[in-house]
């Protein structure tokens, strides 16, 4: 209380004395922050570096993690022993992740536009229905989903997985897109309407570019979640040629004939992690926006 009314002349020496201490504190802060950062990055660095070791080395403890007997991609090639090549399974994962992202974008953009710009019967109820699904963990409906997909002839298909992953993304994505459309001034639409733009053309050509940040966020979350999802893929895919990377790698990790090929595990983990890391580093802003949009509301 008293320092607020303190004479500037009296405060000056306090400042000067404090400056050295502040610099010391800054240094201490940065040293700590860097050490913590290294701790968080270490496991990722360890596995990526270790995946390039030779077969002889790959079963050894990773001390140091990088190859000491020469660089080798043998660990990646050895994944072929588990069914088909790593490219095939990466293709499965990519199909599911891109499919989920694309379908989520289309469905949630349409819905977001509808909820933002139109009035129709049962609007509130339908919106609530979609958002309420976030309260129910999908783990609790997995058993019937298994039967339902069989009924629809979609058991053991990547398409079935895409439809389920898309549904799981909808509460977040529809909410996000509705807000994105709400933020677009109505005057823009009306100006376009006078120019004769109508229907889907209005949505794609006029509104599309304006809600693009929302579209990127929604697509990014859908891609990453579908790429990384494990439990549903484990339950719903039984044919080994359909496996996504997480399911394949779990089979690799359980080993065959009692021995585990840790080099193959390192390679698989690297293949699974790298696309996520790159996407995140490129689209960091969109990602964080999605996260905080959920947190603030």
């Amino acid at each position, binding site marked *: 209380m008293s320092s607020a009314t303190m004479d500037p002349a009296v405060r000056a020496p306090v400042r000067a004395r404090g400056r050295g201490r502040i610099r010391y504190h800054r240094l201490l802060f940065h040293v700590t922050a860097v050490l913590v950062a290294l701790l968080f990055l270490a496991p990722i660095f360890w596995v990526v570096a270790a995946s390039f070791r030779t077969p002889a080395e790959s079963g050894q403890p990773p001390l140091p993690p990088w190859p000491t007997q020469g660089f080798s991609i043998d660990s990646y090639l050895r994944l072929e022993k588990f069914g088909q090549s790593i490219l095939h399974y990466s293709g499965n994962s990519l199909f599911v992740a891109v499919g989920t992202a694309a379908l989520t974008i289309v469905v949630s953009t349409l819905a977001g536009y509808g909820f933002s710009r139109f009035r129709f019967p049962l609007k509130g109820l339908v919106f609530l229905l979609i958002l309420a699904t976030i309260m129910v963990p999908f783990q*609790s409906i997995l058993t*019937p989903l298994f039967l339902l997909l069989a009924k629809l002839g979609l058991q053991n298909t990547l398409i079935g997985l895409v439809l389920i992953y898309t549904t799981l993304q909808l509460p977040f994505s529809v909410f996000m897109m509705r807000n994105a459309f709400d933020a677009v001034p109505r*005057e823009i639409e009306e100006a376009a309407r006078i120019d004769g733009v109508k229907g889907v053309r209005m949505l794609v050509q006029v509104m599309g570019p304006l809600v693009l940040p929302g579209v990127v966020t929604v697509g990014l979350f859908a891609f990453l979640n579908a790429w990384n999802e494990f439990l549903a893929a484990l339950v719903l895919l039984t044919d080994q040629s359909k496996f996504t990377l997480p399911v394949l790698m779990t089979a690799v990790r*359980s080993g065959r004939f009692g021995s585990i090929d840790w080099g193959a595990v390192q390679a698989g983990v690297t293949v699974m992690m790298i696309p996520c890391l790159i996407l995140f580093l490129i689209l960091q802003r969109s990602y964080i926006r999605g996260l905080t949009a959920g947190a603030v509301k």
Partner: protein
Amino acid sequence: MTNTTEIDPAATPAGKPPPRRRRRRGSGWEGLIYVLPAAALVIVFFMIPLGMTIWMSLHKWPLMGKPRWIGLDNYSRMLGDRDFWGALGFTAQYTLAATVGLLGVALILALMVERPSRGVALYRTAYFLPVVTGFASASLLWAWLSNVDSGLFSPLAQMLGLTAQPVNILATFGPAFWSVTIMVVWKMAGFYMVILMSGLQSIPTDYIEAARIDGAKAHQRFRYITLPLVRRPFALALILCVSGSMLAFDQFYIILSGGPQNRTVTAVYYIFNESFVSFRLGYGSALSVVLLAILMVLSAIQLRLLRDRRES
């Protein structure tokens, strides 16, 4: 662009602008067509399965053969199923450890990188990176690092002279449990850091500044200004963390396969075993219904607790 509304032929000539101009074309069924795909997906792949879960829980439902109505038998059987209650108990224990660890670490990280300054953006990115890697990859990575012969932890401890012999940390319950918990903290702390950070940043700097001028120490400013104001994002983080941990599966399935001695089987893992290993689909559904009810109650309690304290 702004004056186009004036020449809109649909605008009323009376001079008074209509209250909601867009209603001109937005009051029919057109909007329903736009939301139809989303609604259809949610109904087919969410509402119907949810109803089916409850329906199936009242049946003896094998994979092959005809389901048979047995009323509440699955639920009464569940009451005597000690393995299920054991799994729930273990899930609760894990949830407690993970929540305390995650929110504690996340709060420290959030306080560290809350204010923008040199280097802070890089630190944030570094702490957040494990979040985007996915539970399956993180678990596989940890399974390797925890392996006694080819991993990192045991050989490193030996090299540093902490242990004389190789220690298989996945072979006994305590070390295995803490290894998984540490993995989860490593992987998810960045996520809760961002949520808590968004709360911290929403506090007007004037408040902190005013308290500083009034002579409040750093810990006092944190206790009396920051903490009460971050209750909302903290509630969100708590609910996400508790419900996420209660649904844990990937890490225990991949790293520990439920071992040692089947002591790390979580609730979802137990349901997975009942439904998809033993193919008792009806019983698995009944357990799912109970788990769902438990989660709903937990979320409601947390919301209530945090809201009441805020209002008082």
